[in-house]
């Protein structure tokens, strides 16, 4: 496997993990604000 492909896969996985984490945080915060309101 060429280096560019390995790096692409690695960075896409990191990007997806970042997105998932961000979405979970956003969802949690939204749920919390709904309860408070």
């Amino acid at each position, binding site marked *: *496997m*060429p*280096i*560019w492909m*390995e*790096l*692409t896969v*690695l*960075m*896409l996985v990191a*990007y997806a993990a970042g*997105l998932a984490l961000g979405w979970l945080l956003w969802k949690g915060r939204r749920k919390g604000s709904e309860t408070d309101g």
Partner: protein
Amino acid sequence: MAAISRETLAVTLGAAIVVAIAVAGAGATGPRLAASLSEQAKVAIKQAGGAPVTARFTTANGWPTRHPLLSGGETLGEGTRARVARAIGAIPGVADIRWADGTTLAKGTEATPRPAVCQEDVAGLLRARTIHFEEGSSRIDQASQTLLDEVAAALRPCLGSIIGITGHTDSSGPEPGNLALSRLRADAVRDALLRRGIPADGLRTSGVGSRVPVEGLDPDDPANRRIEFSVVATEPIKPTPVDTPGPR
């Protein structure tokens, strides 16, 4: 609906940017990394005694890679090939080693290299050089320590076999003393190998005094003072996963 489309677009655009950064980054650093790994592999191959082997760090398309393809080692014994693969696998950054001629080592199949290969490797080492002892003593000469390192490395592929270490002396001096000395010398070599990580249960020592001189030599020739190794029982080893290490 429009909001979802905007989010999808943002995520897709983000992914495209990530891919672009990865490709550009690999383009900028990949060739240098592959060249560096290639240089280190050359040194490792030389040190492992696999001189005809070459490690190619480019794919069939010419792209730099961390997964080397080894070629040119067709004439080498399995022990030496395993040693070369291990040496290259130990270089930080190298992953998933393969042999161009497709071997048991690369694919991890059930082939069984002959343990006698170790005996040949060790005999080859000791053909040109000898483990020296201080005169009348079982203390190994300081200059022979490097040779013992190499002997231990050559024996490592044979772990699981029983390795015989036989001490010999020349015929000067009384034979009972020679016999005892030859045993002590064999024991000293065994102890030195133990210190180098060869397990004790695979080593058997014996001494034959001056009874078995080197063929063609006078019994009193000092060249008869020597240590011989033999693989006296065999338990075939299987190719190790070291040959195909995972990404680091």
